[in-house]
Protein backbone atom coordinates (compact mmCIF):
# COMPACT_ATOMS: atom_id res chain seq x y z
CA UNK A 1 0.00 0.00 0.00
CA UNK A 2 2.67 2.59 1.09
CA UNK A 3 2.10 6.19 2.10
CA UNK A 4 3.71 9.19 0.43
CA UNK A 5 3.76 12.83 1.41
CA UNK A 6 5.27 16.16 0.44
CA UNK A 7 5.35 19.73 1.69
CA UNK A 8 6.76 22.93 0.30
CA UNK A 9 7.01 26.25 2.10
CA UNK A 10 6.95 29.04 -0.40
CA UNK A 11 9.50 31.63 0.64
CA UNK A 12 9.28 30.84 4.33
CA UNK A 13 11.62 28.12 5.66
CA UNK A 14 10.49 26.36 8.80
CA UNK A 15 10.69 23.16 10.79
CA UNK A 16 9.93 20.77 7.95
CA UNK A 17 11.58 17.91 9.83
CA UNK A 18 8.89 18.01 12.48
CA UNK A 19 6.11 18.60 9.95
CA UNK A 20 7.09 15.67 7.75
CA UNK A 21 7.50 13.43 10.79
CA UNK A 22 3.97 14.27 11.86
CA UNK A 23 2.59 13.60 8.37
CA UNK A 24 4.37 10.28 8.02
CA UNK A 25 3.40 9.16 11.50
CA UNK A 26 -0.24 9.70 10.47
CA UNK A 27 0.37 7.38 7.50
CA UNK A 28 2.04 4.65 9.55
CA UNK A 29 -0.86 2.26 8.93
CA UNK A 30 -0.14 2.39 5.18
CA UNK A 31 3.31 0.89 5.63
CA UNK A 32 5.07 -0.07 8.84
CA UNK A 33 8.23 -1.63 7.33
CA UNK A 34 10.41 1.43 6.89
CA UNK A 35 10.24 5.21 6.78
CA UNK A 36 12.22 7.68 4.73
CA UNK A 37 12.65 11.44 4.53
CA UNK A 38 14.14 13.70 1.88
CA UNK A 39 14.43 17.11 3.52
CA UNK A 40 15.75 20.21 1.82
CA UNK A 41 17.69 22.68 3.96
CA UNK A 42 18.85 26.15 3.16
CA UNK A 43 21.99 25.66 1.02
CA UNK A 44 25.38 27.08 2.00
CA UNK A 45 27.42 28.57 -0.82
CA UNK A 46 29.94 26.16 -2.41
CA UNK A 47 29.12 23.51 0.16
CA UNK A 48 27.68 20.02 -0.28
CA UNK A 49 25.92 17.69 2.11
CA UNK A 50 26.33 13.95 1.77
CA UNK A 51 24.41 11.27 3.66
CA UNK A 52 25.79 7.76 3.33
CA UNK A 53 25.87 4.42 5.05
CA UNK A 54 28.46 1.67 5.11
CA UNK A 55 26.24 -1.20 6.31
CA UNK A 56 22.60 -2.24 6.59
CA UNK A 57 20.78 -2.17 9.93
CA UNK A 58 20.30 -5.94 9.83
CA UNK A 59 24.09 -6.42 9.41
CA UNK A 60 24.52 -5.12 12.95
CA UNK A 61 23.03 -8.29 14.39
CA UNK A 62 24.56 -10.82 12.06
CA UNK A 63 27.79 -9.56 10.57
CA UNK A 64 31.00 -11.09 11.91
CA UNK A 65 33.29 -8.35 13.23
CA UNK A 66 30.88 -5.81 11.72
CA UNK A 67 31.87 -3.00 14.11
CA UNK A 68 35.50 -3.07 12.99
CA UNK A 69 34.42 -3.41 9.35
CA UNK A 70 32.29 -0.27 9.65
CA UNK A 71 35.20 1.65 11.10
CA UNK A 72 37.52 0.43 8.32
CA UNK A 73 35.00 1.27 5.59
CA UNK A 74 34.51 4.77 6.92
CA UNK A 75 38.29 5.33 7.04
CA UNK A 76 38.48 4.32 3.38
CA UNK A 77 35.67 6.75 2.49
CA UNK A 78 37.53 9.55 4.30
CA UNK A 79 40.78 8.82 2.53
CA UNK A 80 39.09 8.60 -0.87
CA UNK A 81 37.40 11.94 -0.36
CA UNK A 82 40.74 13.55 0.47
CA UNK A 83 42.32 11.80 -2.50
CA UNK A 84 39.63 13.29 -4.78
CA UNK A 85 40.23 16.78 -3.45
CA UNK A 86 37.14 17.14 -1.25
CA UNK A 87 37.62 19.42 1.76
CA UNK A 88 35.59 17.88 4.59
CA UNK A 89 34.02 20.53 6.85
CA UNK A 90 31.92 18.49 9.29
CA UNK A 91 31.52 14.78 10.00
CA UNK A 92 28.50 13.56 11.99
CA UNK A 93 27.96 9.98 13.04
CA UNK A 94 24.19 9.65 12.92
CA UNK A 95 23.99 5.94 13.67
CA UNK A 96 26.84 3.47 13.94
CA UNK A 97 26.53 2.75 10.20
CA UNK A 98 25.16 6.04 8.78
CA UNK A 99 26.97 9.37 8.45
CA UNK A 100 26.45 12.97 7.42
CA UNK A 101 29.33 14.93 5.94
CA UNK A 102 29.53 18.48 4.68
CA UNK A 103 32.34 19.30 2.31
CA UNK A 104 33.60 21.59 -0.41
CA UNK A 105 34.64 20.46 -3.84
CA UNK A 106 35.12 22.30 -7.10
CA UNK A 107 33.80 19.71 -9.56
CA UNK A 108 33.82 16.00 -10.36
CA UNK A 109 31.02 15.07 -7.94
CA UNK A 110 29.94 12.04 -9.96
CA UNK A 111 33.45 10.61 -9.97
CA UNK A 112 33.67 11.17 -6.23
CA UNK A 113 30.31 9.43 -5.70
CA UNK A 114 31.36 6.46 -7.82
CA UNK A 115 34.63 6.18 -5.92
CA UNK A 116 32.89 6.21 -2.52
CA UNK A 117 30.32 3.62 -3.57
CA UNK A 118 33.18 1.40 -4.71
CA UNK A 119 33.93 0.87 -1.00
CA UNK A 120 32.39 -2.39 0.21
CA UNK A 121 28.98 -1.82 1.85
CA UNK A 122 28.97 1.90 1.08
CA UNK A 123 25.91 3.56 -0.41
CA UNK A 124 25.38 7.27 -0.82
CA UNK A 125 21.82 8.07 0.24
CA UNK A 126 21.96 11.64 -0.98
CA UNK A 127 24.38 14.21 -2.25
CA UNK A 128 23.59 17.82 -2.99
CA UNK A 129 23.62 21.37 -1.77
CA UNK A 130 20.19 21.22 -0.08
CA UNK A 131 18.97 17.60 -0.05
CA UNK A 132 19.44 15.36 2.97
CA UNK A 133 17.99 11.91 2.70
CA UNK A 134 17.53 9.54 5.61
CA UNK A 135 15.72 6.21 5.69
CA UNK A 136 15.67 3.30 8.03
CA UNK A 137 13.51 0.53 9.43
CA UNK A 138 10.78 1.65 11.83
CA UNK A 139 8.04 4.25 11.91
CA UNK A 140 8.46 8.00 11.39
CA UNK A 141 8.87 8.75 15.09
CA UNK A 142 11.63 6.18 15.48
CA UNK A 143 13.54 7.20 12.35
CA UNK A 144 13.19 10.95 12.99
CA UNK A 145 14.44 10.43 16.55
CA UNK A 146 17.32 8.25 15.44
CA UNK A 147 18.47 10.76 12.81
CA UNK A 148 17.61 13.89 14.80
CA UNK A 149 15.18 15.29 12.22
CA UNK A 150 12.84 16.87 14.75
CA UNK A 151 14.40 20.31 14.37
CA UNK A 152 15.35 20.31 10.72
CA UNK A 153 14.88 23.77 9.28
CA UNK A 154 14.21 23.85 5.57
CA UNK A 155 12.07 24.75 2.61
CA UNK A 156 10.50 21.49 1.43
CA UNK A 157 10.44 17.77 2.03
CA UNK A 158 9.04 14.49 0.78
CA UNK A 159 8.56 11.28 2.74
CA UNK A 160 7.45 7.68 2.54
CA UNK A 161 6.13 4.92 4.76
CA UNK A 162 6.74 1.56 3.14
CA UNK A 163 4.82 -1.66 2.95
CA UNK A 164 7.19 -4.06 1.25
CA UNK A 165 5.42 -5.81 -1.62
CA UNK A 166 7.94 -6.11 -4.45
CA UNK A 167 11.26 -6.35 -2.61
CA UNK A 168 12.90 -6.92 0.77
CA UNK A 169 12.45 -5.13 4.08
CA UNK A 170 15.78 -3.32 4.22
CA UNK A 171 17.14 0.22 3.97
CA UNK A 172 18.17 -0.32 0.37
CA UNK A 173 14.54 -0.89 -0.64
CA UNK A 174 13.24 1.98 1.45
CA UNK A 175 12.23 5.28 -0.13
CA UNK A 176 12.96 8.08 -0.95
CA UNK A 177 15.41 7.45 -3.76
CA UNK A 178 18.04 9.91 -4.71
CA UNK A 179 18.35 10.28 -8.50
CA UNK A 180 22.02 9.35 -8.57
CA UNK A 181 24.19 11.20 -9.51
CA UNK A 182 22.05 14.34 -9.84
CA UNK A 183 22.29 16.84 -7.04
CA UNK A 184 19.19 17.33 -4.94
CA UNK A 185 16.69 15.14 -6.87
CA UNK A 186 14.63 12.64 -4.86
CA UNK A 187 11.51 10.54 -5.44
CA UNK A 188 8.87 8.71 -3.39
CA UNK A 189 6.31 6.45 -5.02
CA UNK A 190 3.16 4.48 -4.27
CA UNK A 191 2.27 1.79 -6.80
CA UNK A 192 3.78 -0.83 -9.08
CA UNK A 193 5.61 -0.49 -12.37
CA UNK A 194 4.97 -3.36 -14.75
CA UNK A 195 7.65 -2.58 -17.34
CA UNK A 196 10.35 -2.20 -14.71
CA UNK A 197 12.85 -4.65 -16.19
CA UNK A 198 12.54 -3.26 -19.72
CA UNK A 199 13.32 0.23 -18.48
CA UNK A 200 16.00 -0.95 -16.09
CA UNK A 201 17.89 -2.68 -18.91
CA UNK A 202 17.55 0.43 -21.08
CA UNK A 203 18.80 2.73 -18.35
CA UNK A 204 21.65 0.42 -17.35
CA UNK A 205 22.79 0.40 -20.95
CA UNK A 206 22.98 4.17 -20.70
CA UNK A 207 25.34 3.89 -17.73
CA UNK A 208 22.97 4.39 -14.77
CA UNK A 209 23.41 2.32 -11.63
CA UNK A 210 20.68 0.68 -9.53
CA UNK A 211 21.22 -0.07 -5.85
CA UNK A 212 18.01 -2.06 -5.30
CA UNK A 213 15.43 -4.16 -7.09
CA UNK A 214 12.70 -1.75 -6.05
CA UNK A 215 10.63 -0.37 -8.93
CA UNK A 216 10.46 3.03 -7.24
CA UNK A 217 14.17 3.56 -7.73
CA UNK A 218 13.55 3.35 -11.45
CA UNK A 219 11.40 6.48 -11.44
CA UNK A 220 14.23 8.47 -9.88
CA UNK A 221 16.76 7.16 -12.40
CA UNK A 222 14.29 7.61 -15.27
CA UNK A 223 13.75 11.27 -14.39
CA UNK A 224 17.47 11.80 -13.87
CA UNK A 225 18.17 10.33 -17.31
CA UNK A 226 15.62 12.64 -18.92
CA UNK A 227 16.95 15.72 -17.15
CA UNK A 228 20.49 14.72 -18.10
CA UNK A 229 19.46 15.02 -21.73
CA UNK A 230 18.08 18.51 -21.13
CA UNK A 231 14.40 17.73 -20.58
CA UNK A 232 12.63 19.96 -18.02
CA UNK A 233 11.33 18.26 -14.87
CA UNK A 234 7.66 18.80 -15.72
CA UNK A 235 8.09 17.46 -19.26
CA UNK A 236 10.00 14.43 -17.94
CA UNK A 237 7.16 13.73 -15.54
CA UNK A 238 4.58 13.99 -18.32
CA UNK A 239 6.66 11.61 -20.45
CA UNK A 240 6.68 9.13 -17.57
CA UNK A 241 2.89 8.81 -17.75
CA UNK A 242 3.21 7.44 -21.29
CA UNK A 243 6.41 5.48 -20.93
CA UNK A 244 6.07 3.83 -17.52
CA UNK A 245 3.40 1.13 -17.26
CA UNK A 246 1.52 0.22 -14.13
CA UNK A 247 -0.42 2.05 -11.49
CA UNK A 248 1.43 4.76 -9.64
CA UNK A 249 1.41 8.10 -7.95
CA UNK A 250 4.79 9.61 -7.23
CA UNK A 251 6.24 12.77 -5.73
CA UNK A 252 9.56 14.28 -6.83
CA UNK A 253 11.59 17.08 -5.30
CA UNK A 254 14.53 19.11 -6.59
CA UNK A 255 16.49 21.91 -4.95
CA UNK A 256 13.69 24.40 -5.62
CA UNK A 257 10.65 22.43 -6.81
CA UNK A 258 8.13 19.86 -5.70
CA UNK A 259 6.08 17.84 -8.18
CA UNK A 260 3.54 15.04 -8.33
CA UNK A 261 2.31 12.72 -11.08
CA UNK A 262 -0.62 10.33 -11.17
CA UNK A 263 -1.00 7.61 -13.80
CA UNK A 264 -3.91 7.32 -16.22
CA UNK A 265 -5.76 4.70 -14.16
CA UNK A 266 -5.67 6.92 -11.06
CA UNK A 267 -5.64 3.86 -8.84
CA UNK A 268 -3.29 5.27 -6.20
CA UNK A 269 -4.55 8.06 -3.98
CA UNK A 270 -3.29 11.59 -3.48
CA UNK A 271 -4.87 14.53 -1.67
CA UNK A 272 -3.68 18.11 -2.12
CA UNK A 273 -3.85 21.27 -0.09
CA UNK A 274 -2.62 24.47 -1.66
CA UNK A 275 -2.40 27.99 -0.25
CA UNK A 276 -0.32 31.05 -1.10
CA UNK A 277 2.53 30.07 1.20
CA UNK A 278 2.14 26.31 1.61
CA UNK A 279 1.51 23.20 -0.47
CA UNK A 280 0.98 19.85 1.22
CA UNK A 281 0.15 16.54 -0.41
CA UNK A 282 -0.27 13.03 0.92
CA UNK A 283 -1.85 9.66 0.29
CA UNK A 284 -4.46 10.49 2.91
CA UNK A 285 -5.94 13.77 4.08
CA UNK A 286 -5.38 12.78 7.68
CA UNK A 287 -1.63 13.39 7.12
CA UNK A 288 -2.21 16.94 5.88
CA UNK A 289 -4.54 17.67 8.78
CA UNK A 290 -1.89 16.53 11.23
CA UNK A 291 0.01 19.77 10.53
CA UNK A 292 -2.92 22.16 10.07
CA UNK A 293 -5.05 22.69 13.14
CA UNK A 294 -7.51 24.92 11.28
CA UNK A 295 -10.14 23.86 8.73
CA UNK A 296 -8.73 23.55 5.19
CA UNK A 297 -10.03 22.73 1.71
CA UNK A 298 -8.44 19.81 -0.08
CA UNK A 299 -8.89 18.06 -3.41
CA UNK A 300 -7.75 15.04 -5.42
CA UNK A 301 -5.64 15.44 -8.55
CA UNK A 302 -7.07 13.57 -11.54
CA UNK A 303 -5.78 10.77 -13.76
CA UNK A 304 -2.80 11.69 -15.89
CA UNK A 305 -2.21 14.86 -13.92
CA UNK A 306 1.24 16.38 -13.36
CA UNK A 307 1.75 19.36 -11.06
CA UNK A 308 4.95 21.17 -10.17
CA UNK A 309 5.35 23.88 -7.54
CA UNK A 310 8.26 26.28 -7.23
CA UNK A 311 9.69 27.63 -4.00
Amino acid at each position, binding site marked *: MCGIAGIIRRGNPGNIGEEMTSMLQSLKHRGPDSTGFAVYGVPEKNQYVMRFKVAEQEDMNSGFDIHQQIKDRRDIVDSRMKEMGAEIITQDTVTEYAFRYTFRKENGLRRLADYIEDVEGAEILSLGSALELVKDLGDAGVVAGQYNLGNFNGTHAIGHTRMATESDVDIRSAHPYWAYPFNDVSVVHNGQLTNYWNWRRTLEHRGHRFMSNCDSELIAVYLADKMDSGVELEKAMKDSLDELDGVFTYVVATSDRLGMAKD*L*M*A*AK*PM*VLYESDDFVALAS*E*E*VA*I*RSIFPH*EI*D*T*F*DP*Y*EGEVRVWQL
Partner: protein
Amino acid sequence: MATIDKSFDAGLHSEQLSGRTQEIFFSAEEDENFVYPYNAFEVDSSKKAEFDAQSLESTDINLKIRELMKEGFGHIVVQNPRAKHSIGVGILNRLQLDFEGSLGYFGCGLVDGPNIRISGRVGWSFAENMMAGTIIVEKNAGSTFGAAIRGGDLVCKGDVGSRTGIDMKGGTIIVGGRTGTLSGFMMQRGRMIILGDAGPNLGDSMYDGTIFVGGNIASLGVDAVAGEMTELEAEWIERKLALYGMKAPNGAANLQKIVAGKQLWNYDNLEPTEKKIVL
Protein backbone atom coordinates in the same frame (compact mmCIF):
# COMPACT_ATOMS: atom_id res chain seq x y z
CA MET B 1 -28.01 7.91 -32.21
CA ALA B 2 -27.69 5.16 -34.76
CA THR B 3 -26.18 2.73 -32.30
CA ILE B 4 -28.86 3.17 -29.68
CA ASP B 5 -31.62 2.90 -32.28
CA LYS B 6 -30.09 -0.32 -33.45
CA SER B 7 -30.02 -1.71 -29.92
CA PHE B 8 -33.66 -0.76 -29.38
CA ASP B 9 -34.62 -2.39 -32.65
CA ALA B 10 -32.82 -5.51 -31.60
CA GLY B 11 -34.77 -5.51 -28.35
CA LEU B 12 -31.57 -5.14 -26.40
CA HIS B 13 -32.34 -2.01 -24.44
CA SER B 14 -34.91 -1.73 -21.74
CA GLU B 15 -35.18 -0.41 -18.20
CA GLN B 16 -35.75 -3.97 -17.07
CA LEU B 17 -32.64 -5.92 -16.20
CA SER B 18 -32.01 -8.88 -18.42
CA GLY B 19 -29.67 -11.83 -18.56
CA ARG B 20 -29.34 -14.82 -16.29
CA THR B 21 -26.84 -13.25 -13.95
CA GLN B 22 -29.05 -10.31 -13.01
CA GLU B 23 -31.14 -10.23 -9.87
CA ILE B 24 -34.05 -8.12 -8.75
CA PHE B 25 -32.75 -6.53 -5.60
CA PHE B 26 -35.84 -4.82 -4.31
CA SER B 27 -39.49 -5.59 -4.52
CA ALA B 28 -42.29 -3.66 -2.82
CA GLU B 29 -43.93 -6.94 -1.89
CA GLU B 30 -40.89 -7.97 0.06
CA ASP B 31 -40.99 -4.96 2.40
CA GLU B 32 -42.20 -7.04 5.26
CA ASN B 33 -39.13 -9.22 5.00
CA PHE B 34 -36.80 -6.34 5.83
CA VAL B 35 -35.92 -6.65 9.48
CA TYR B 36 -33.03 -5.16 11.33
CA PRO B 37 -31.68 -7.55 13.89
CA TYR B 38 -29.92 -4.77 15.76
CA ASN B 39 -29.34 -1.03 15.75
CA ALA B 40 -32.98 -0.11 15.20
CA PHE B 41 -33.46 2.80 17.56
CA GLU B 42 -36.50 4.92 18.31
CA VAL B 43 -35.21 8.44 17.80
CA ASP B 44 -36.80 11.87 18.05
CA SER B 45 -35.76 14.25 15.26
CA SER B 46 -36.27 17.27 17.54
CA LYS B 47 -33.77 15.94 20.07
CA LYS B 48 -30.32 17.26 19.14
CA ALA B 49 -26.88 16.27 20.46
CA GLU B 50 -23.42 17.52 19.56
CA PHE B 51 -19.94 16.22 20.33
CA ASP B 52 -16.32 16.98 19.45
CA ALA B 53 -14.47 14.20 17.63
CA GLN B 54 -11.08 15.91 17.68
CA SER B 55 -9.46 13.54 20.14
CA LEU B 56 -11.58 10.46 19.45
CA GLU B 57 -10.60 7.40 17.39
CA SER B 58 -12.91 6.33 14.54
CA THR B 59 -14.36 3.44 16.52
CA ASP B 60 -15.14 5.71 19.46
CA ILE B 61 -16.86 8.22 17.18
CA ASN B 62 -19.08 5.50 15.70
CA LEU B 63 -19.86 4.12 19.15
CA LYS B 64 -20.74 7.59 20.40
CA ILE B 65 -23.20 8.06 17.51
CA ARG B 66 -24.83 4.75 18.42
CA GLU B 67 -25.00 5.62 22.09
CA LEU B 68 -26.75 8.89 21.27
CA MET B 69 -29.23 7.13 18.97
CA LYS B 70 -29.90 4.67 21.74
CA GLU B 71 -30.71 7.63 23.99
CA GLY B 72 -33.25 8.80 21.40
CA PHE B 73 -31.33 11.66 19.77
CA GLY B 74 -32.54 12.06 16.20
CA HIS B 75 -30.18 14.89 15.25
CA ILE B 76 -26.48 14.45 15.92
CA VAL B 77 -23.74 16.94 15.06
CA VAL B 78 -20.13 15.73 14.98
CA GLN B 79 -17.56 18.51 15.27
CA ASN B 80 -13.96 18.20 14.00
CA PRO B 81 -13.95 14.78 12.33
CA ARG B 82 -10.48 15.76 10.98
CA ALA B 83 -10.61 13.42 7.95
CA LYS B 84 -10.58 10.29 10.08
CA HIS B 85 -11.46 7.06 8.31
CA SER B 86 -14.56 4.86 8.47
CA ILE B 87 -16.77 7.32 10.34
CA GLY B 88 -20.57 7.22 10.20
CA VAL B 89 -20.71 3.69 8.86
CA GLY B 90 -23.45 1.08 9.26
CA ILE B 91 -26.22 3.40 10.42
CA LEU B 92 -29.46 1.53 9.75
CA ASN B 93 -31.75 4.14 11.21
CA ARG B 94 -33.62 7.34 10.62
CA LEU B 95 -31.25 10.07 11.77
CA GLN B 96 -30.08 13.57 10.87
CA LEU B 97 -26.30 13.36 11.10
CA ASP B 98 -24.14 16.43 10.45
CA PHE B 99 -20.36 16.36 10.19
CA GLU B 100 -18.74 19.77 10.64
CA GLY B 101 -15.49 19.15 8.78
CA SER B 102 -14.10 16.50 6.48
CA LEU B 103 -14.14 12.70 6.48
CA GLY B 104 -11.36 10.34 5.41
CA TYR B 105 -11.69 7.04 3.60
CA PHE B 106 -14.68 4.68 3.76
CA GLY B 107 -16.97 7.22 5.42
CA CYS B 108 -20.72 6.57 5.72
CA GLY B 109 -20.55 3.11 4.16
CA LEU B 110 -23.45 0.65 4.44
CA VAL B 111 -25.94 3.23 5.67
CA ASP B 112 -29.65 2.58 5.34
CA GLY B 113 -31.96 5.47 6.08
CA PRO B 114 -30.14 8.43 7.64
CA ASN B 115 -29.92 11.96 6.24
CA ILE B 116 -26.28 12.98 6.42
CA ARG B 117 -24.56 16.27 5.64
CA ILE B 118 -20.80 16.80 5.50
CA SER B 119 -19.65 20.42 5.49
CA GLY B 120 -16.17 19.54 4.17
CA ARG B 121 -14.64 17.01 1.82
CA VAL B 122 -14.76 13.20 1.86
CA GLY B 123 -12.03 10.71 0.96
CA TRP B 124 -11.99 7.57 -1.16
CA SER B 125 -14.79 5.00 -1.12
CA PHE B 126 -17.36 7.24 0.47
CA ALA B 127 -20.89 5.85 1.04
CA GLU B 128 -19.98 2.44 -0.31
CA ASN B 129 -23.03 0.17 -0.44
CA MET B 130 -25.42 2.89 0.71
CA MET B 131 -28.94 1.44 0.83
CA ALA B 132 -31.26 4.39 1.49
CA GLY B 133 -31.38 7.94 2.83
CA THR B 134 -29.69 11.11 1.60
CA ILE B 135 -26.09 12.21 1.89
CA ILE B 136 -24.89 15.68 0.92
CA VAL B 137 -21.19 16.52 0.67
CA GLU B 138 -20.70 20.28 0.45
CA LYS B 139 -17.14 20.22 -0.98
CA ASN B 140 -15.09 17.66 -2.97
CA ALA B 141 -14.93 13.87 -2.84
CA GLY B 142 -12.24 11.30 -3.59
CA SER B 143 -12.36 8.29 -5.90
CA THR B 144 -14.85 5.40 -5.85
CA PHE B 145 -17.52 7.75 -4.54
CA GLY B 146 -20.78 5.83 -4.11
CA ALA B 147 -19.36 2.47 -5.12
CA ALA B 148 -22.07 -0.21 -5.34
CA ILE B 149 -24.82 1.94 -3.82
CA ARG B 150 -28.26 0.36 -3.98
CA GLY B 151 -30.53 3.24 -3.11
CA GLY B 152 -30.86 6.75 -1.75
CA ASP B 153 -29.54 10.09 -2.99
CA LEU B 154 -25.80 10.70 -2.79
CA VAL B 155 -24.83 14.28 -3.59
CA CYS B 156 -21.42 15.93 -3.90
CA LYS B 157 -21.55 19.63 -4.68
CA GLY B 158 -17.87 19.82 -5.71
CA ASP B 159 -15.55 17.67 -7.84
CA VAL B 160 -15.28 13.91 -7.46
CA GLY B 161 -12.38 11.57 -8.28
CA SER B 162 -12.22 8.54 -10.54
CA ARG B 163 -14.54 5.49 -10.66
CA THR B 164 -17.51 7.40 -9.29
CA GLY B 165 -20.52 5.09 -8.96
CA ILE B 166 -18.55 2.01 -9.88
CA ASP B 167 -20.82 -1.04 -9.76
CA MET B 168 -23.80 1.02 -8.58
CA LYS B 169 -26.96 -1.03 -8.32
CA GLY B 170 -29.56 1.65 -7.69
CA GLY B 171 -30.17 5.08 -6.21
CA THR B 172 -28.99 8.42 -7.53
CA ILE B 173 -25.56 10.03 -7.51
CA ILE B 174 -25.38 13.76 -8.19
CA VAL B 175 -22.07 15.54 -8.80
CA GLY B 176 -21.98 19.32 -8.99
CA GLY B 177 -18.51 19.46 -10.56
CA ARG B 178 -16.47 17.02 -12.62
CA THR B 179 -15.66 13.33 -12.25
CA GLY B 180 -12.55 11.34 -13.10
CA THR B 181 -11.84 8.34 -15.26
CA LEU B 182 -14.05 5.24 -15.38
CA SER B 183 -17.07 6.80 -13.71
CA GLY B 184 -20.05 4.47 -13.88
CA PHE B 185 -17.76 1.50 -14.53
CA MET B 186 -19.85 -1.69 -14.49
CA MET B 187 -22.89 0.29 -13.38
CA GLN B 188 -25.89 -1.99 -13.10
CA ARG B 189 -28.79 0.23 -12.16
CA GLY B 190 -29.68 3.68 -10.91
CA ARG B 191 -28.94 7.17 -12.21
CA MET B 192 -25.91 9.40 -12.11
CA ILE B 193 -26.07 13.13 -12.85
CA ILE B 194 -22.73 14.84 -13.48
CA LEU B 195 -23.15 18.57 -14.01
CA GLY B 196 -19.52 19.21 -14.97
CA ASP B 197 -17.11 17.30 -17.20
CA ALA B 198 -16.75 13.52 -17.13
CA GLY B 199 -13.32 11.87 -17.42
CA PRO B 200 -12.23 9.19 -19.88
CA ASN B 201 -14.02 5.83 -20.25
CA LEU B 202 -17.35 6.99 -18.89
CA GLY B 203 -19.77 4.12 -18.26
CA ASP B 204 -17.28 1.47 -19.26
CA SER B 205 -18.92 -1.98 -19.36
CA MET B 206 -22.12 -0.67 -17.80
CA TYR B 207 -24.91 -3.22 -17.66
CA ASP B 208 -27.79 -0.81 -17.21
CA GLY B 209 -28.69 2.45 -15.52
CA THR B 210 -28.36 5.96 -16.92
CA ILE B 211 -25.70 8.65 -16.74
CA PHE B 212 -26.49 12.30 -17.46
CA VAL B 213 -23.61 14.71 -18.13
CA GLY B 214 -23.73 18.50 -18.30
CA GLY B 215 -20.14 19.18 -19.43
CA ASN B 216 -17.73 17.51 -21.81
CA ILE B 217 -17.21 13.77 -21.87
CA ALA B 218 -13.52 12.92 -22.38
CA SER B 219 -14.48 9.55 -23.88
CA LEU B 220 -17.08 6.83 -23.54
CA GLY B 221 -16.11 3.42 -22.21
CA VAL B 222 -16.74 0.07 -23.83
CA ASP B 223 -20.44 -0.49 -24.58
CA ALA B 224 -21.52 2.93 -23.31
CA VAL B 225 -23.61 4.72 -25.92
CA ALA B 226 -25.55 7.95 -26.25
CA GLY B 227 -29.23 7.78 -25.38
CA GLU B 228 -32.10 10.15 -26.08
CA MET B 229 -33.32 12.36 -23.24
CA THR B 230 -37.05 12.19 -22.62
CA GLU B 231 -39.20 15.00 -21.23
CA LEU B 232 -40.01 12.87 -18.23
CA GLU B 233 -36.34 12.41 -17.44
CA ALA B 234 -35.62 16.12 -17.80
CA GLU B 235 -38.45 16.94 -15.39
CA TRP B 236 -37.24 14.33 -12.95
CA ILE B 237 -33.67 15.71 -13.07
CA GLU B 238 -34.83 19.28 -12.49
CA ARG B 239 -36.94 18.22 -9.52
CA LYS B 240 -34.12 16.14 -8.11
CA LEU B 241 -31.53 18.90 -8.46
CA ALA B 242 -33.89 21.47 -6.94
CA LEU B 243 -34.14 19.32 -3.83
CA TYR B 244 -30.44 20.03 -3.19
CA GLY B 245 -30.36 23.64 -4.42
CA MET B 246 -28.64 22.67 -7.66
CA LYS B 247 -29.32 23.38 -11.30
CA ALA B 248 -28.08 22.02 -14.64
CA PRO B 249 -25.99 24.81 -16.23
CA ASN B 250 -27.87 24.72 -19.57
CA GLY B 251 -31.09 23.16 -18.39
CA ALA B 252 -31.78 19.50 -17.67
CA ALA B 253 -33.11 18.88 -21.19
CA ASN B 254 -29.65 19.66 -22.60
CA LEU B 255 -27.76 17.12 -20.54
CA GLN B 256 -26.14 14.30 -22.48
CA LYS B 257 -27.63 10.91 -21.70
CA ILE B 258 -25.46 7.79 -21.65
CA VAL B 259 -26.80 4.24 -21.44
CA ALA B 260 -25.54 0.71 -21.95
CA GLY B 261 -25.36 -0.49 -25.55
CA LYS B 262 -25.85 -4.03 -24.25
CA GLN B 263 -23.66 -5.58 -26.87
CA LEU B 264 -21.23 -7.27 -24.51
CA TRP B 265 -21.01 -11.04 -24.15
CA ASN B 266 -23.01 -11.09 -20.93
CA TYR B 267 -26.16 -10.01 -22.76
CA ASP B 268 -26.58 -13.24 -24.61
CA ASN B 269 -28.58 -15.83 -22.71
CA LEU B 270 -26.16 -18.64 -23.12
CA GLU B 271 -24.05 -20.09 -20.36
CA PRO B 272 -20.40 -20.67 -21.36
CA THR B 273 -21.00 -24.43 -21.65
CA GLU B 274 -24.08 -23.87 -23.82
CA LYS B 275 -22.12 -21.45 -25.97
CA LYS B 276 -19.61 -24.17 -26.75
CA ILE B 277 -22.41 -26.43 -27.96
CA VAL B 278 -23.96 -23.72 -30.11
CA LEU B 279 -20.69 -22.62 -31.60
